[in-house]
């Protein structure tokens, strides 16, 4: 079964943008630009989800990743004034050859998998699970089948939040001491 032509064209265009954005993120020497390329990438991935008929995941992707997380990234970069990357220091030089090796490894594995199994268009997969991306379907899955992992994640996040609160609390205390000394 052939995929329909407009969808394929859209997919190809988006794929090019996604790869270009990913490369741009890696190549850019300015951290702000890197972050923005990543936002573009997230946006394209969200569109992929839309094409796959999963609007809920698409919107969640934009809200959480492109919206909240990347804004925090930008916030931190701007706050620290760390836009420009420092020239690579000597003890990181060994990373370059290693990364090349790893990339080759990754590419060969993907090629092996893709060629070994043949290209699946995904359409038959979609037909089997029509409406699998709707909000209610995801809600049902999350709160019934995957209830335990879901709750475990929330506890993990809670722990992280408490940790953050404790860390900033310590800082505030120090500030108060400094102030009382002044008075």
């Amino acid at each position, binding site marked *: 079964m052939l995929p329909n032509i407009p969808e394929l064209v859209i997919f190809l265009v988006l794929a090019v943008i996604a790869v270009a954005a990913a490369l741009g993120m890696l190549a850019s020497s300015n951290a702000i630009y890197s972050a923005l390329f990543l936002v573009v990438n997230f946006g394209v991935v969200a569109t992929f989800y839309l094409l796959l008929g999963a609007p809920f995941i698409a919107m969640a992707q934009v809200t959480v990743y492109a919206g909240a997380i990347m804004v925090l990234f930008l916030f931190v970069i701007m*706050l620290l004034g760390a836009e420009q990357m420092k020239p690579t220091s000597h003890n990181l030089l060994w990373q370059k050859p290693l990364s090349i090796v790893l990339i080759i490894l990754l590419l060969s594995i993907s090629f092996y998998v893709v060629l070994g199994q043949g290209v699946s268009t995904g359409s038959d997969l979609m037909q089997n699970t029509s409406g699998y991306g709707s909000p209610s379907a995801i809600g049902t899955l999350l709160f019934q089948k995957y209830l335990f992992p879901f709750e475990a994640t929330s506890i993990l996040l809670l722990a992280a939040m408490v940790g953050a609160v404790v860390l900033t609390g310590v800082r505030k205390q120090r500030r108060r001491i400094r102030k009382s000394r002044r*008075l």
Partner: protein
Amino acid sequence: MSQVRKLETTLDELKTLFSDKAQTGETMVLNLGPQHPSTHGVLRLILELDGEEVVRCVPDVGFLHTGIEKNMEAKTYLKALVMTDRMDYLNNLGNNLTYCLAIEKLCNIEVPKRAQVIRVICAELQRIASHLVWLGTSAMDLNASSVLIYCFRDRENLLDIFEMIGGQRMMTSYIRPGGVWRDVPDEFVPAVNRFLDYLPEKLADYERMLTRNPLFMRRTIDIGIIDPSDAVERGMTGSSLRGSGINYDVRRAMPYSGYDEYDFDVPLEDGCDVYARYRVRMREFHESMRIIKQALDKLEPGPVITDDRKYSPPPRSELGNSMEAVIHHFKYWTEGFSAPKGEVYVATESPRGELGCCLVGDGSPKPGRVHFRTPSFHNLQSLSFMSEGYLVADLVAMIGSIDIVLGDVDR
């Protein structure tokens, strides 16, 4: 005279103002002003910020330096009076008064009773006008924009009254050595009474908008704390000092123009913060109105300027039939009057604090030296101390709360 110090500051000198962190970029040095919406004129503050927390605040003054003090030495006593209007442009009549009191003390001039009462009315009306500008602008600093417009609307009534008595809205030069320029017109008393009826209602409105407003209270309570001892050390005076609970009011401490005959309270608050200073000034509105009411009762017919022809011009009616009057008139308006040798210091309570005038007479018709001890300048000294450890937004509230006028700081 010793070598005049080079005025430009070198970079190395500037570096000593900040911590080492500023040089490594760990903290940010921000130049707030001289052109900035909330510096009340042309105040420049060089801030060292850690995030938005003020680590160090260095006020840089002098952008409105007009050389008034030095210029006054080149003019006769009377002509120099005009310049005092332009120092603290929200306390024009008060500046006149201080300078005239100094001349009167130097030359031993007796001021008629009616003139003294008119002076008190003028000074207190001026205090209300100045406080209205303060209330409007300091509320505006917290973005309560409507209060600004309301206060300026109310102040307009006062400016009309000043125009009525002096012919000018702001730079009246109405108070003259020996008394006041001329008697108040007939409409004056009704106009003041109308204003006294009008203002309390409006003030109640502003109190409703601000005093119990949770947002306003959050922005002002415990902000810009300055302990009484620190405030005194830094020469703070006026409402800002009384907000730290210290009872010092020149009208009580060194009464002038018959202030000792009036019944009024000196409002005190012991919060030491922006809110306390706000409360003090809001209560001072009412005290000023009390004083004005008493003064209006005391207003009895009589001369409004001394009849010592050496220090006051002869009335126009005398010029036609008295040769002596013509001579006095000519001498008074050309050469001016000479003050004896000597040095005097006189202080008044301006809306901002103790406004002092040190006048040195050298026997000539021109002052040997005039120096003003201006409250804004001394109050500004406390700003850098006050603001450390607070946020930039608090700093803005603090600038509003010490009510500086840059014309008063720089002269």
